[in-house]
């Protein structure tokens, strides 16, 4: 009887802990101090949508760093869905970008050289110039991207999935 109650108690303690870990996503390894990329060099950003959208990403155990580039195609820029994925910072390296926060009715236009922050609120954005280059930082990690080095597809980026599915 005592043994059963002990096991029951142990399960009650472990199940919430395990489910909390599962909710936090995969444990990306700590790769130690490293230089990820250089914001003056866009040549190494992997192409996701041909000649239109480029994205590189790097995970730490708790954060994801992203380097994005948009180039307007014949039909304009790739548009994404409104999304919400944690606290975010962005440093616009090139161009002019509008971020739209519909719930709080804010639109923020960011120019090259500006550093913007927002908490965990829904937003979408659109490049207002021919080309935009953005360094972004997310807390928590962008687990939807998958492991570092994996080629991004329409299914591994929730922001572009709807547009690409059309």
């Amino acid at each position, binding site marked *: 009887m005592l043994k059963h*109650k002990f096991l029951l108690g142990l399960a009650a303690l472990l199940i919430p802990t395990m489910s909390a870990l599962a909710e936090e996503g995969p444990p990306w390894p700590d790769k130690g101090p490293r*230089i990820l990329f*250089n*914001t003056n060099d866009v040549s190494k950003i992997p192409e996701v949508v041909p000649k239109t959208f480029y994205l590189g990403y790097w995970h730490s155990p*708790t954060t994801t760093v992203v380097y994005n580039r948009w180039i307007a195609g014949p039909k304009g820029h790739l548009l994404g869905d409104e999304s919400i994925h944690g606290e975010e910072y962005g440093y616009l390296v090139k161009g002019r970008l509008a971020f739209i926060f519909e719930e709080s009715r804010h639109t923020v236009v960011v120019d090259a050289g500006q*550093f913007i*922050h*927002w908490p965990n609120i829904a937003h979408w954005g659109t490049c207002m110039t021919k080309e935009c280059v953005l360094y972004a*930082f997310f807390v928590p990690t962008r687990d939807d991207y998958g492991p570092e080095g994996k080629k991004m597809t329409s299914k591994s980026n929730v922001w572009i999935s709807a547009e690409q599915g059309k």
Partner: protein
Amino acid sequence: MSARTGGLLSVWVVLILIAPVGYAQSAGTLESPPLDRPEVFFDVAKPDLTVIVPGQVAFRHWQGTVSTAAALQLTKKGSAGHAPTVAEQYGGVQMHLLKGKLRVIFEHQELLLKSGDVASWGDLRHRIQCEVKECLLTIISNPVAWRRLGPEDSGPVPLYMDPDYLRKVGAHVGTEKQGGTK
């Protein structure tokens, strides 16, 4: 139910109730300010940082909900050179060097950043050293470096700066700024 089994069950119940509270507190979110809107923190064309030591050190920080951002400008001042730096450890770091050349010194490793480099590391003790006349960098730290820097208007000792040196040159930081004891 015996008194012994009842006691064991009580211990489990208490543990189950306490564990999530302890986890939330360790995440460092309870003291974070409520934020609900976007904000442009910084413009590299006109940084608008707080001058800590005229001609040598300028700094500013912003508190997010689960992270902290900061910008630091280091300038070599004549024969005095750069203001001395000290080692810091305040959480995971993403550093973007906007201008200059910067050495980041860890216990067993060094990174030499050039203008435009974005670097990342975990919760490690490290020191920085500007290798040219001027360095301008942004820092994002996770979890929130609230205890190290305090509220945005508190005038903390800037990250990496030697507090003894700042006192010696009469910099307006921390309690000196608020108490007016300088």
